[in-house]
């Protein structure tokens, strides 16, 4: 791990679809997104995926949480999305050893755009402020 940087990436995303979707479709979409993220991270260079996680909260205490820890195991989902949502607000955290923040930002944005476009939708991604300049995170070299 001596040469792997660790630069956590976080974002808020709004997934917008052309028509309302059943909850199950949102769940499948989120699982597909996390799996695509894991594959893209693994394909982007030598890295160790720590945790890829996403959370959507719904009124009344509902939630949908997705989690992936490698490209070789399917993501896990907890909770459920309600039926009939046309848009989904997601918080995303990518904790990966070995990939710079810029690479994670590109992966998160591109994979979301690809998946949404296949369904005629789109995703707005707002990257959270990044406090550690590339290569200067205290965990670099751990």
């Amino acid at each position: 791990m001596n040469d792997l940087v660790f630069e956590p990436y976080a974002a808020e995303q709004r997934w917008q679809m052309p028509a309302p979707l059943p909850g199950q479709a949102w769940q499948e979409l989120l699982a597909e997104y996390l799996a695509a993220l894991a594959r893209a991270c693994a394909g982007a260079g030598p890295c160790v995926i720590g945790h890829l996680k996403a959370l959507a909260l719904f009124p009344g205490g509902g939630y949908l949480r997705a989690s992936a820890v490698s490209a070789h195991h399917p993501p896990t989902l907890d909770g459920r999305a309600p039926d009939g949502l046309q848009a989904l607000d997601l918080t995303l955290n990518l904790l990966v050893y070995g990939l710079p923040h810029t690479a994670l930002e590109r992966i998160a944005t591109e994979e979301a755009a690809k998946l949404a476009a296949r369904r005629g939708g789109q995703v707005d991604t707002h990257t959270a402020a990044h406090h550690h300049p590339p290569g200067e995170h205290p965990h670099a070299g751990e």
Partner: protein
Amino acid sequence: MHLLLVTGFLGSGKTTLILALAQAARAAGRRVAILVNEIGEVGIDNQLMRQLELDVWELTSGCICCTLSADLVSTLHKLDATYGSDLVIVEPSGAADPANLQRALPYYRGRPLESIRWATVVDPLRLPMLLEVLTPLITAGIAQADVLIISKADLATPEELARAREAIRAINPRAPLHCASLRAGLEPTLVAELVP
């Protein structure tokens, strides 16, 4: 006030364990506070815990993976003075060295802690790889545990579970070792070991 520290690498299942424990403790009439030290610029675990109406404090001053220790002690003092918890559950970041917590606890000067328990969650799917690339971090977490939990028992093969048991026992032969599918709920024996 009892203190339970739940450690384990990123994605091992700490949050899932804590959610289940907190809900079990609350159902038993305990007042539970959860301190979350989440790495990353936007916390996800604390949002989920609040959505589930659990009482959560976020440890977030500066770079949380490095300044956790001071934040932990000051937050424990605040809880002691204002909240009256029966149980405080601490979830350090899965990337942080648990030794920082051990060094910090002696600086706590509030109501005496009735117990301090360390539970370490281990992901059997990735343990061999993690032991290879993050040896000190993973080994330290297992070695210091009072209770060990192999998570994701529903996702791992019998061979992966056996390998995980063997590797864990080589590092920590004394702590009780549980094997669980945390998403499916907790065995009462595990709850009893972790919630006084």
